[in-house]
């Protein structure tokens, strides 16, 4: 059974519609570790030892955050900078994360068609996420396809609830017994695992 860690970063969750809903679902799934970074480190003063220990204890690591300015809130950068230490996460002796799976769960304001070469934003979300992809590679992790909620600016409460339910199903599937993780990096979006057979191993 895969152990899932969600490193969640939202500086203003009290005003969030989407992520608040996602958290409500996530908290109801047993066996998933939710690490609320802004709540844990309101002064951005990250406890590196604690974070590394958490990483060591899990197989699949997600960074969940709004897709601010084609990237993540400041906390995520701070987390990457401090936690993924040389000699621990990467480098000759840095093998602590080897073989783990790493991915993003993000919410974007624009619709999917706006994240196309000919769209409003000119690039796909996958292209924007390149730093995460390469970070995972450098740390000997597999980058799994991202879970993307598009067009959340237009969504109303029932849309958001649907999205959240879908994420719930994805997470349930991931931590399911005997679920084969190897095809994950090959997918376009993480939601697609719902189309894969439940037990592939």
């Amino acid at each position, binding site marked *: 059974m895969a152990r899932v860690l969600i490193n969640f970063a939202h500086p203003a969750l009290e005003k969030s519609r989407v992520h608040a809903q996602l958290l409500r679902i996530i908290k109801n799934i047993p066996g998933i570790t939710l690490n609320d970074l*802004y709540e844990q480190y309101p002064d951005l003063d990250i406890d590196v030892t604690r974070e590394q220990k958490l990483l060591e204890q899990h197989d699949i690591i997600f960074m969940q955050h709004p897709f601010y300015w084609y990237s993540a809130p400041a906390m995520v950068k701070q987390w990457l900078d401090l936690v993924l230490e040389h000699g621990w996460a990467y480098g000759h002796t840095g093998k602590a994360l080897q073989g783990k799976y790493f991915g993003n769960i993000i919410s974007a*304001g624009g619709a999917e068609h706006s994240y196309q070469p000919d769209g409003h934003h000119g690039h796909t979300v996958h292209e924007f996420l390149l730093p995460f992809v390469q970070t995972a590679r450098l740390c000997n992790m597999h980058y799994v396809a991202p879970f993307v909620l598009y067009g959340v600016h237009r969504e109303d409460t029932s849309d958001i609830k649907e999205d959240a339910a879908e994420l719930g199903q994805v997470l349930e599937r991931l931590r399911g017994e005997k679920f084969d993780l190897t095809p994950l990096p090959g997918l376009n979006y993480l939601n697609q695992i719902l189309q894969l057979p439940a037990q592939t191993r």
Partner: protein
Amino acid sequence: MDQHSLLFQAMVYLAAAIVFVPIAKKMGLGAVLGYLIAGIIIGPSLLGFIGREGEDIMHFAEFGVVMMLFLIGIELEPALLWRLRASILGLGGLQVILSSAAIAGIALLIGQPLNTSLALGMILSLSSTAIVLQTLNEKGWMGTAAGQSAFSVLLFQDIAVIPMLAIFPLLAGNAAPDTAAHTHSLRDNLPGWGQTLVVLGAVAVIIIAGRYLVRPLMRIIARTRVRELFTATALLMVVAIAVLMNLVGLSSALGAFLGGVVLANSEYRHELESDIEPFKGLLLGLFFIAVGASIDFRLIFEQPWLILGLVLGIMTLKGIVLLLLGKIFKLNTDQNLLFAFALADIGEFAFVLLSFTSQAHLMSTEMTAMMTAVVAISMALTPLIMLLYEKVIQPYFTRSEVSTEREADQINEKNPVIIAGFGRFGSMTGRFLRANGIHATILDLDSDRVDALHNLGIKVYYGDASRYDLLVAAGAADAKMLIIATDHPEQTRDIVKMAQRYFPHLQLLVRAENNEDTFELMDLGVLHIYRETVDTSLRVGVDALRMLGQRAYHSERAARTFFRQDERTLKGLSALRDDKKQYINSMKERIEEMEKLISSDRVKTWLDEGQGWDAETLRDEIRGEKEGEE
């Protein structure tokens, strides 16, 4: 006394206080001396406005002392008593016993009968709680080793009056069989042991009433919700104790102290405290005025040398005993001197005890009158002696310690930071800097603390950082910054002025006590001002928000925003304040200030913080387009 003259007297007293206390304060003499001078000037010896019946005034004014002791009693926490037990019993006990014995021995040598000598010894061994505590507080020395020791001794003395008053009837019984029943005291027709019994009975009444009567009474009063009834009750309590004590011929002050102690653990303690406090202040002032007025200059001029000799002799004797004790209890020389200087006087209880001894024929009337003058003069001298200590002796120690320090290690160490004051505030800053490899030169006025720090290998100068030579010795000329973390705003401002004048290159980081103090520092042009409790209060606020379910990050940001806003508003208020400097009505001003601060808090809606993370406007825009498309 008809109403006219009563009002006239009140006017004279109040006017005298208002005229002389500010003058004395301005001249650096302190409030106590101001009151005393006021008393001397309006008293029978000079202007003669008051005091043809000196005892009357004293009797009335003694009530200030009564209230002070009530408050001292009520503020006495058992834990504090326990912590100070060694110095109270050891230091206090030895002081009373040794001083009494020394004085009684000398009295005996010059031919006084044994009982008179003993009475004199006991009376004169006491020191003035009112003057000493008031002066120590005023100068900010209460927290020093000497201050604490003095407090312990005064406490023991206050308690020691109980057995003294119980012993006096026995002494009197031996001396002169009672002939005149001229007072209305209950005890007069009783034999010595009976009187002692009555005294103990009265004490028991106070303890029992305090335990079992006051609490239900206060509960009833509280239920009426009439604010002034509390004040009335508190006053009634003190007055009732005084009346009871007078009835049995005891000191009301003592009874009040006892009453206070009994009530120290009651839940109405703070209520009682705040109700009595203003009366205490006024009456204590009156008491000091009365002491001043009661100095019988005619008597003094008749026998000036005898009286002066007595005063100086007794104070020197007491001083020597105190110095000896300070040595035994390991006070530093300068602290020991302060301790001895503070307690060498004779206390207000002496007046009470003296009036009793003359009634009981323990002493002749002339002798009582002379002793009263001696006591009053010694009390009047106390603030002066303390002033002498502050201006002459303390600087001497400051200099000498500095000079030895300088030879020791000034050459090889040039610290970029000087910290003035290493109490609970400065020590935190100092430790933090030290932990980060920044060494600071520390100046502190508490020699015991200085010694302790020396033992830890921290470079410390003992002394007053507002002194130029001390700052020089501390390396102010080469240092980068001066952190001023002293307890007392006035002292802080002195240091600021000194530093600005002679070391303008120093960055000043200054601790401020409150907003008022902050304004003063702003007026001096200080840029970095740190109000001492602001950060802690806001941390409490942050934790409170978090515990109420708000996000940690939001709470932290809200606190920082609030802090910045507060600082800004304060600066605005400071500018406003400059415009109307004439108008100083501090309480009213403070309320207005608070109103302005609070109303500026409301201007901001705290949840508006961090618009970028919310994008509500963006959402609205997109939804607008969407509707447009459809």
